[in-house]
């Protein structure tokens, strides 16, 4: 029972990734895409969590954590890029 539920949840997460991907591709503005990518990251994270429950293993916990960090850093970098035009600013404007 719970196994079926988990698989359904996994399918739904995959579906939501597919839907968000549409936004990434279509997304009229850059911020749309950035948010969509962030959502994909979170969805991926959740999907991995469910998979690890299905497989009954703790091996994916690092992956989940890394993904959480990466999604955060990625979104920050992207927004900084959209706002400032660069990701890493040089020291030269001291």
């Amino acid at each position, binding site marked *: 029972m719970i196994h079926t539920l988990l698989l359904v949840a996994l399918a739904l997460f*995959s579906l939501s990734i597919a839907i968000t991907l549409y936004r*990434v591709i279509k997304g009229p503005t850059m911020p749309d895409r950035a948010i969509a990518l962030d959502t994909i990251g979170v969805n991926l994270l959740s999907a991995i969590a469910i*998979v690890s429950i299905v497989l009954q293993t703790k091996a994916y916990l690092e992956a989940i954590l*890394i993904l959480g960090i*990466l999604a955060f850093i990625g979104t920050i970098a992207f927004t900084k890029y959209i706002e400032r035009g660069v990701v890493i600013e040089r020291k030269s404007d001291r």
Partner: protein
Amino acid sequence: MTQVLFIFIPMLAAVFIPFLFKSIKNVHTGWFVLLVPASLVIVYSTYIADVARGQVFTGSLEWIPSLGINFVSYLDGLSLLFSLLITGIGSLVVLYSIFYLDKKKEQLHNFYIYLLLFMCAMLGVVQSDHLISLYFFWELTSISSFLLIGYWYNRDKSRFGALKSMMITVGGGLFMLGGFLLLGIMGDTFSIRELIAQAPQLASHDYFIWALLLVLLGAFTKSAQFPFYIWLPDAMEAPTPVSAYLHSATMVKAGIYLVARFTPIFALSEVWIWLVAGIGLLTLCWGSFFAVKQTDLKGILAFSTVSQLGLIMSLLGASAITFHVDDVSNSIFRFAAFAAVFHLINHATFKGSLFMIAGIVDHETGTRDIRKLGGLMSIMPLSFTVAAIGSFSMAGLPPFNGFLSKEMFLTAMLAIKEFELFNFNTWGILFPVLAFMASVFTFVYSFYFVCHTFIKKRNEKYADTVHEAPIGMLVSPILLASFVILIFFIPNVIGDLFVKPAMLAFQPFYASAAAIDIHVSAWHGFTPELYLTLGIVGLGALLFSTLKKWQPLYQLWPQKFTLNHAYDMMMIGLDTGMNQVSRSYMRDSMRQYLLYMFTAISVIVITTLFVTDAFSFSFEGTAPIRLYEIILIIVLVIGVVTTLIAKSRLTAIIGLGSVGYTVALFFVIFNAPDLALTQLVIETISVALFLLAFYHLPKLTKINERMRFQVNRAVVSLAVGAMVTLVALSAQSQKLFPSISKYYEETVATLAGGGNIVNVILVDYRGFDTLFEIAVLSIAGIGIFAMIKLRLTRKGNGHENK
């Protein structure tokens, strides 16, 4: 052993030449060089008596014993005759060159090094019994000849002539090497003597005819036979001593030597007889016909050399007939072999002297153009005498040695039509007819050479300044000319000492040289040959007296149909053609090259799969497909398609990123947590790098445009995709052995003391790979740092802008 070392003496001597040239300025370097061939002549003369009795001398020096390759010096009649010619005429040529080349103006050390190198090579060619060392010396003659022809390297024509002779002779030499290798395979030995011993077995071998053709090709290119003679007239740009030595007496006879040496192996084939005799005769006619056209003294002599070599070659072809007749000692063909060797000696004497005379005339008047010369008889009486002797001998008149060999040549040619095998009784009649025509033209150009240079009305321009050559220069031609006369009076001494022992080498039917019952006599009664000679003299005199009327006819022959034109066109055509070919596919476009590569890979792999019938798909043992996998695959496909059809690069990058993350997710559902972890991090970094690169694209070309669709690329990419899919499916369906991973699983804890199999494999079981992947990453990092920091061109530009 010491006998082999004699071959290398000239090469060893060559080492000291530059020191002698640099340190002893007031003595002409040639005097030191002269010692080498002169002492070798004495050394080889000591062999004459023993060799004439039928003895042979061998000496060998190991070169590459593990491959059975040795320097073998084998002295029988033929090798000894050639060795004596090489060293004898070599001495005379060195003596002549001492007076011909100025010791202050010329680069004498170069000249004598090349000449000694050539002498060594020639001695090696004629004495080698081992095919590979024979080839080694053969190519050494080509190279040293190339150097000698291009001696005055700042002249265009010298360089052209040197290159042309190099291309043709080295090309022929390579074919010859092929023939040698085939012979080596057939007989399982590279020794010529051992090959001759098994000649009848060789003749029935499949490779026999190929070996024959290839060896002949080498001989014909070297000996300037039709149609490969074209390099010889262009080689006349060499200094005259070189022309006299290489291009009349020695190198061009290397092919003759080769044909004679291989006659016992190949003469069993009718192809050999027809080719050697036929091409020889064709060369004889062609060369004598076109010699009359030349206006350059050395040009006439070059064509005459070509034609005389053809004569010797055709005689060698006729001598091969003796292998097919029953009673050799009574057969008339035995004269052919005798005549060939005899004429070889005669030709070396008179042609050497004629070349030296041409050099003297050039040296004294400053021109070799026969139209500007004339009337030198009273100014240069000695030169005239020598030239007349040489020319009359070349024309085949008594009392000179050319008469004797020409008579024997006619005898042999008349005999050919009597021969009853291989269609000779139908076509054989051509041989005496062509030989007669060629002899007439030989008569004409011989007189043309001597009369138009020395007798014709004097050119006043030269009357005051020209005088007889220094006596030192005349010594060599006079010596040679005296041989010309001497041989006429003592032909049988020469015959017994040199010709008959040499004949034994390629006429192995005789027990000894003494058993050959050929007696040369100047007067042999009223025979058909004599009538032919009378006819030659009559017709030749008639043609020569009317020369002015018909010589212009040569101009009618269009330039387009000459062999030189064909050669030039071939070289230019090869050059431009190859350029066009490589330009047609080397377009400097990465896309083009990738297209070639991918097409090649997919075509090769798919056809191989088809041909070897490797398609067998079985879905046995595959895992069931689950719903979320299908959805993930759809996401993956959407990502890929987005990347391909994206209008802007940003979209493509994001599409690629989504593909990467989906792949990470696949790693998750297929139980590969470490891979998933790494993939996520790496994908993030590479997307960031892509964005960085994208941002820095120059403004002007930053046009957001969809990738253009091209059918061929679509086809190729589909083919590559199909290839990978097919290969993966076939490989998956045909797993033959169980995986090794069981071992890792069992021993990861016990042997390696770890729990994570992937990591233990990476650092323990197969840590070597990891080490070098670390190295790859370090190199990449250092490379990026260097590319960013090191801006040499910008610095250079800045310097220029200052």
